[in-house]
């Protein structure tokens, strides 16, 4: 009797369509592309700001075009998806144990949402002031 183990081929391109959980993973990872692009827009804004009032005004005008608004809405949707999916897995990466009891996952996730709210409020306050 001879051994002849058979290795099944794995598709390099369509593997993630095999299971819904792989699709969700790819959606989470893809969201970072939009966050990266949005960060790029912010950097361009900073550069334009450093170039004077005229450059800044043209940047602001470009932001108001329909294509720019559509991009920002899309980036916002992906940023929310990215943030919530990562917040929801934080209890796995950062479990908290106090004595013999473990902090419930909802508390750890809730703390992240609370931190998000505080930082957002702080930024809005600074921007408004």
């Amino acid at each position, binding site marked *: 009797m001879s051994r*002849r183990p058979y290795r099944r081929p794995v598709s390099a391109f369509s593997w993630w369509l095999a299971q819904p959980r792989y699709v969700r993973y790819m959606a989470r990872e893809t969201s970072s592309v939009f966050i990266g692009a949005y960060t790029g827009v912010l950097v361009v804004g900073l550069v334009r700001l450093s170039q004077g009032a005229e450059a800044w005004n043209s940047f602001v005008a470009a932001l108001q075009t329909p294509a720019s608004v559509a991009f920002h809405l899309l980036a916002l949707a992906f940023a929310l998806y990215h943030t919530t999916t990562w917040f929801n897995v934080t209890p796995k990466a950062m479990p908290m144990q106090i*004595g013999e009891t473990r902090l419930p996952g909802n508390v750890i996730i809730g703390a992240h949402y609370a931190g998000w709210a505080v930082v957002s409020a702080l930024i809005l306050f600074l921007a408004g002031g």
Partner: protein
Amino acid sequence: MSERHIELEILRYNPETDEAPAFQTYQVPCQEDWVVLDAVNYVKDELDRTLSYRWSCHMAVCGSCGVMINGEPMLSCKAFLRDLPDRIRIEPLANFPIERDLVVVLDDFMDKLDSVKPFLIPREEKTVESGVHIQTPAQLDRFKQYTLCINCSLCYAACPQYAHDNNFVGPAALALAHRYNLDSRDVGRTAREDVVASNAGIWECSFVGACSEVCPHDVDPAGAIQQTKIASTVDYFKYLLTPGRG
């Protein structure tokens, strides 16, 4: 109890005669309280004695009956037919070479487990006469979850990272390393770092999380790997900030 008829599509492979695996279909009369393993046993006992597959305990403890059931890695003794459709596709665990029929080659999995030094490495060896290692319930609770692994290897079958790169140490082995690293009696974390914190170790994981979703004992290897990444990152920055390093 009423009798239901199901169709089992089982992937067959005979290394002596077949070039590639192919599905064979069996009609199985089954009981409402049967699991998939009961149906496979029926095929073996009543329909086709040539079918090869692994099983032992029939109670989700031995970890040997893992197969792909309609594309999902599951213990066939824990998958109730009442939760499944009338047509069930059974394949050997994905990401492992097929030895024969539903039996896969687990040598690589065993080597990976072995590679992380899955044993206590104490600060100093104690003789039997010098007594036991004391451990509080809180210290036990830190790692107990990771001791529940039954080495069924479903997590490797679910992991797309392992599917694409067999060098990846993988979920169960990395969770096992984490189990010992968290043990208050163990000082072997540095000795395990070469394998665990390598590119083929924790950093190969991109946190798909499929391993934890399919784990029949809720060991949560994905969580163990992310915690190890954080610990390893902290180690790195500590090293960077250490005066006179190198």
